[in-house]
């Protein structure tokens, strides 16, 4: 097994290079992530979860990823880099954009440590350990180092045990806490429950209290056994000093469900909700367990989980989506039918033909957001930071006395779209094309666009822009984006804005997560991004979502967006895949 691991590592750089999509969704290799931050055991387990990937498998994997990336429609060739249909906030879009940038092609390879000492693959006796220690030439303590390495590469429990026996023999039968915890890690990893019990007894006998890392491991080791209730005691122990992590709760809940104690599981879940966002695994466990339970109360709680996902705009992973589907289909007498689909641009579900919820905010939400943007983004407690009070006044008067606009343009962002073309010319081109469609256009810019003597901003072209559109020019040291946001919001729900800026810094100015989600929803529905490749060509925009990407229900149907395992989604993107659930009537 050990040698196999090493070959896995050696082939790793290749894997990394040929496969830029290596980062899997966090839920995928849960155990490794879980154990990593307990003990500083590095993230290499993640590599190991893929160590079976021989070169052929890698290729197959790449193919899979390619297929997943290039979208569900067959007409899109692999050579076409930006599928025109994927919108600005589609999952994976940012990754694609970054890959088009040639500078970021070379990923620095992670340093691959070469071992000086071959880790033993079978238990050694004292003489052999002594010899190994003599061979070791490192700064660190040999025992600590070797057990860390063993934990790193998941050596078998017996090898580790022989190490501990050797240490104990040298040291009057005493083994250090550090070694004991790493050993416990190996026992938990290899699911050696009886060994876990033993170490637990030793720790109880030897130490008055344990720290969070050992407690976490013990919880994880105990929940699969019939002593799982002791894990709850350990959880209480952790609570005395700090709030347990969501992983601790996850383990305890999984243990409770494993032993059919539903009440404890729900209580722990409620406790968890009060101070943290639960892990998707926890929620998935409830759904998985629900298959065998025919209980209305339990079903209602599962629906509550779905509403929780909706309210906090969380998206389940692929396997969780499968669990949800399976649970719905297992509900007796209701005859649910689940399908994995996508949504058409119009907001119609391809599975059932129903329309999804609109992306537009309700009037109350709209007013709320407008107030918040004015207060937090533009004013922010100090009007001088982004603008000046005089300028703000000037802008507010300007907006007040203009009729509502249809399009608000971020002049500088649009003008600098093509590095080689003249700025004023690009801007004029965009403005005139919009003006031809009888749209009321507002161009926001800075004063230097008018006064600059450089050839990039030609006076005659700027005058032409001012003829075709209303313009507002902020001071050169003021920020123009907040004005853009406010002008758009002020003009009403029909008004859109043009910029490629993702506005993340302005979103971050908003005080709470709820307002940020509102802002993001509004942004998805109102931001136009130009995707022209050549200056002077006909104006084309990335399509705007007309529907809201969020868990939603109409009573006899559920639509649940989910994250694919092989697509890396950035925090400001939304999934493109959906689970459509229909009740047969």
């Amino acid at each position: 097994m050990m040698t196999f691991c090493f070959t896995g590592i050696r082939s790793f750089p290749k894997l990394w290079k040929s496969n830029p999509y290596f980062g899997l969704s966090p839920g995928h290799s849960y155990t490794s992530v879980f154990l990593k931050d307990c003990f500083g055991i590095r993230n290499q387990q993640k590599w190991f979860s893929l160590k079976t990937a021989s070169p052929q498998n890698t290729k197959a994997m790449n193919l899979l990823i390619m297929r997943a990336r290039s979208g569900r429609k067959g007409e899109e060739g692999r050579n076409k880099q930006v599928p025109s249909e994927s919108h600005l906030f589609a999952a994976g879009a940012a990754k694609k954009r970054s890959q088009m940038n040639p500078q970021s092609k070379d990923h620095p390879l992670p340093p691959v440590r070469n071992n000086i000492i071959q880790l033993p693959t079978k238990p050694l006796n004292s003489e052999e350990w002594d010899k190994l220690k003599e061979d070791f030439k490192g700064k660190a303590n040999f025992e600590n180092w070797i057990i860390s390495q063993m934990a790193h590469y998941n050596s078998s429990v017996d090898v580790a045990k022989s190490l501990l026996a050797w240490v104990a023999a040298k040291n009057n039968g005493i083994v250090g806490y550090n070694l004991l915890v790493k050993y416990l890690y190996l026992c938990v990893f290899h699911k050696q429950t009886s060994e876990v019990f033993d170490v637990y007894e030793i720790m109880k006998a030897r130490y008055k209290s344990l720290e969070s890392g050992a407690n976490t491991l013990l919880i994880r080791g105990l929940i699969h056994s019939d002593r799982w209730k002791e894990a709850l005691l350990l959880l209480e122990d952790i609570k005395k000093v700090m709030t347990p992590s969501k992983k601790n709760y996850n383990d305890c809940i999984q243990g409770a469900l494993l032993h059919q104690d539903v009440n404890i599981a729900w209580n722990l879940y409620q406790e968890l909700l009060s101070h943290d966002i639960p892990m998707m695994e926890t929620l998935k466990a409830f759904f998985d367990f629900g298959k065998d339970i025919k209980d209305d109360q339990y079903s209602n709680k599962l629906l509550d989980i779905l509403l929780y996902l909706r309210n906090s705009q969380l998206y389940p992973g692929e396997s969780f989506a499968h669990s949800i589907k399976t649970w719905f289909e297992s509900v007796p007498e209701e005859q649910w039918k689940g399908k994995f689909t996508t949504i058409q641009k119009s907001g119609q579900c391809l599975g059932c033909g129903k329309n999804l919820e609109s992306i537009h905010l309700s009037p109350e939400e709209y007013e709320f957001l407008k107030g918040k943007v004015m207060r937090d983004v533009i004013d922010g407690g100090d009007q001088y930071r982004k603008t000046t009070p005089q300028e703000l006044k000037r802008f507010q008067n300007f907006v007040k006395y203009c009729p509502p606009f249809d399009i608000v343009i971020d002049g500088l962002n649009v003008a600098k779209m093509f590095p080689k073309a003249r700025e004023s010319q690009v801007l004029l081109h965009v403005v005139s094309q919009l003006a031809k469609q009888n749209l009321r256009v507002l161009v926001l810019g800075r004063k230097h666009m008018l006064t600059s003597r450089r050839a990039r901003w030609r006076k005659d072209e700027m005058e032409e822009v001012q003829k075709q559109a209303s313009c507002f020019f902020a001071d050169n040291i003021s920020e123009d984006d907040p004005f853009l946001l406010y002008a758009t919001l002020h003009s009403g729900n029909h008004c859109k804005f043009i910029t490629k800026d993702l506005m993340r810094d302005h979103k971050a100015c908003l005080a709470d997560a709820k307002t940020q989600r509102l802002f993001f929803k509004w942004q998805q529905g109102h931001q136009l991004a130009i995707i022209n490749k050549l200056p002077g060509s006909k104006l084309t925009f990335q399509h705007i979502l007309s529907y809201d990407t969020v868990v939603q229900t109409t009573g006899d149907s559920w639509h649940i967006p989910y994250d694919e395992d092989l697509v890396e989604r950035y925090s400001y993107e939304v999934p493109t895949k959906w689970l459509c659930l229909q009740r047969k009537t």
Partner: protein
Amino acid sequence: MSVSITFVRPFTRVLVPFTLHRKRRVLYSTILPRYMSSKIPAVSCPNKESTSPPKQLELDGWKVTMKSSVQESVSTVSSTKDEDPVAATRELIEMWRLLGREVPEHISEEELKTIMECASKSSKKKYLKYLYVKEKMKKAKQIKKEIKAAAKEKAKTDQLLETTKEDKQQDFLFLRLWDRNMDIAMGWKGAQAMQFGQPLVFDMAYDNYMKPKELQNTVSQLLESEGWNRRDVDPFHIYFCNLKIDGPFYTELIKRYGEKWNKLLLTATEESHVDLFPKDSIIYLTADSPNVMSTFKHDKIYIVGSFVDKNQQPGISLAKAKRLNLATECLPLDKYLQWDTGTKNLTLDQMMRILLCVKNTGSWEEALRFVPKRKHTGYLEISRYSQELLNRVKKSKTFNSFPKGSLNIRTQKKVT
């Protein structure tokens, strides 16, 4: 080593059952009441035996001694830990230390309280690491001190031996009072600067933007800049403006300077810089400014914000200058340096040294050597080249404008 082990091993076989019988009963009596429901399995696990090699190593023996030996006293606190979260925290930290985490060995009650007040787990860990590093530094310092003291002692005895050997009279011009003389000289220079020096203002109006930690850093930097200024040939006249009496800045400064505070040769005032100086001669220095400082002007009053910003709140000092309608400038870092990493915000003492240098020499290349080397990869050659070009043009012009005779005099002077 290997010999002794082989010698011991036969013994363990004998010892193990013995200790097992003797200590097992004690163990049961201590653990069982706590966990009545739990059943304790046999020491050796049967499914392990089958996978272990035929050679049959003694693998489980250590467990018995581990279980039976006395509890390690982890901390001095008594066993009433169940109610007391402070003691529990102390124990947790102790266990973390056993695990090799970065936590301090000794913790005072006050520090423990700070830990318990930390809102999140990560802030707890951060604070513990800070304490750990602090403790380590203190220890290293202590060891260094001891070594130095020993060396000094040794040198002293050596010297004693030498002086007794050759006890000869020596003639000196001065008594050894250099430090004090230096101080007095600097005091005179400082008094001169108070009368005729160019003002340099530190704006202290940022105390509500900073956390206590940042504020302490700011005060450290202020102390250092004041020190650099004192030692300079031609010091600035330092102003601490907007310094609220009994505000956090004031108390921290008093704490650091102690007695010296009232004897400092600088002006500390609650007034604002706009009240003390004419507005049009003030230049507010901020990295966010769109205007680049080209030359140091000796008739202007430069203002530096005493503000350490670890939270990345951009544009605060620019906002302040905008509010008072002041001119702003930033250092010409990009013009002269190939910037690499880090923010363009420099520490207060670096600012002070750069300003002093540019005031005395007028050369940016000279002054910008105080910018940390890690932040840039080197000086830009182009600017130096253009500078030289400019100088050459200037020189040729002045040469031409000189009458022939005066030029000769100059060259002659150089020769002599």
